């Protein structure tokens, strides 16, 4: 059972969000980057669990510049066997999915994992696009998965509950909270990661249909109105008359 895990890089969750003066680009000055939590905590660890149960290998792929290698090494330290980096700063989800599809098409992976979404772009797009490129079933927002020989039962989060589906290999799955438990790389893993292969792959031509017009920050709150703890009637009145939400 061989798996491929798509990993992406996102600004640290505490990063201050700001944009360049023309509003066209994220201002990365002073920002530190992490592996997208859904990819690291759930997708990658689940792939490793599948390998521990059924054998095979776990590969990871990232579409990005050489500066992403540090995040890719972390995935190797957590337990991936081999890594690939498609050497291109991607323009869009369309670009990422086209690159990963071109890379994976002749590799015969049984399961391709993505995260539920990237916490910066919040697209939740790449998994579905990739599945369409490769003509594979796509099971989205998996919070539980029982992988066996031949097929897997995947429980996916839907509005107000869950749904369990049975799917045969190969397929694409996107990882949501609950799919696995976060693993922290240990010293041995970190040492071993240095010797594991990280191969650079050349990108293919891919088109994009989106042009960024501008990024902007939401309007700031004007300030909080404090209410006396003994006067909850006043809070209810304000919510009704001033805020008009109840």
């Amino acid at each position, binding site marked *: 059972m061989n798996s491929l895990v798509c990993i992406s890089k996102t600004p640290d969750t505490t990063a201050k969000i700001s944009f360049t003066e023309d509003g066209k680009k994220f201002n990365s000055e002073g920002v530190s980057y992490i592996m997208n939590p859904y990819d690291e905590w759930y997708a990658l660890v689940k792939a490793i669990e599948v390998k521990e149960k059924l054998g095979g290998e776990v590969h990871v792929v990232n579409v990005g510049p050489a500066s992403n290698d540090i995040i890719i090494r972390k995935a190797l330290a957590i337990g991936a066997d081999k890594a690939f980096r498609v050497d291109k700063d991607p323009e869009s989800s369309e670009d990422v*999915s086209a690159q990963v599809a071109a890379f994976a098409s002749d590799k015969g992976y049984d399961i391709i994992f993505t995260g539920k979404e990237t916490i910066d772009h919040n697209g939740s797009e790449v998994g579905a696009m990739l599945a369409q490129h490769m003509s594979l079933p796509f099971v989205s927002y998996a919070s539980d998965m029982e992988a066996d020989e031949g097929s897997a039962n995947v429980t996916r989060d839907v509005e107000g509950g869950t749904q369990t589906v049975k799917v045969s290999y190969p397929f694409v799955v996107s990882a949501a909270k609950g799919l696995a438990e976060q693993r922290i790389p240990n010293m041995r893993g970190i040492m071993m990661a240095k010797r594991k292969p990280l191969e650079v792959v050349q990108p293919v031509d891919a088109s994009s249909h989106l042009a960024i017009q501008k990024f902007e920050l939401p309007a700031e709150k004007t300030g909080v109105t404090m209410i006396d703890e003994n006067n*909850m009637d006043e809070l209810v009145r304000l919510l009704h008359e001033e805020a008009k939400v109840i």
Partner: protein
Amino acid sequence: MVLVYAEHQDGRFKKAAFEATTFARKSAEALGSGVTAVVFGDVEEAGALGESGADKVLKVDVGSIAEADNAMACDILHQIAEKVNARLVVLNHSSFGKSVAGRLAVKSNSGLVSGVVEPVSSGNNGYIAKKSVFSGKAYATYEIESDMGIVTLMRNAIPVDRSGSAVEVENVDVDVPDSRLEIISSDVKKGEVPLPEAELVVSAGRGMKDPSNWDIIEELADALGAATACSRPVADADWRPHHEHVGQTGVAIRPNLYIAIGISGAIQHLAGVNNSKVIVVINKDPEAPFFKAADYGVCADLFDVVPRLTEAVKKFKS
């Protein structure tokens, strides 16, 4: 033509269906076009989408598998988009909509903007769409430069308009591909408003001390008719179910009212809730960062204040 997919649960439209149709109407006006809505399977009074601006409702005769199998749904929607010559396809930013949108974008070679918060307008080279990014910490506006555009609409982004009248429902014939999935089971709470759709949310954090203290939260939520949510450590400790976890790595919500009780307001928590229209914070620490993001604040012990607030709500309602 603007094509909008209307979601339903067991034959009854979700609020999201009317949101998406209202949004499609507003976008269609800006683009100088009409609105065709499409439903999968049997829906009670499907023509009611006309109230939100659909000119026509198309019904596809497929079972619930088409909602679970995004490949099948994509194939069907693609056929309909071609049939009605769609310029824009509108889906909800839901587990269904998000799973289909990316497929449809690839299949139809179209640009996709997911999580849009304002109606689409026309630009120099295509369609202008504004979406939420960085878990609600910012917005991005894109121009979609393809013949057809696809968007998924964020929940609670626009108010529902149902001032129109019902329209006719037409059956539409499509080729339904075989499914490569099999539904084993479904566990969806009936009659309960799913958290992302809730207009009022009562949320609590580690300040609650113990899961057994949650009855005061549930009583307040009941009095208001609100859904309940929680911070991440609370869900991680299994004090509350995971689907209640809101924030950057949980559910992102934008209700009209978010009441945060015993939650400090860490940046990762705020990321998923700060687009709420009105935020009330109850915390005993005057320095809690959440007060900076709040509209109304009560600085006191939650075990005293929450029952008092519940009483005040009950009094107001009666």
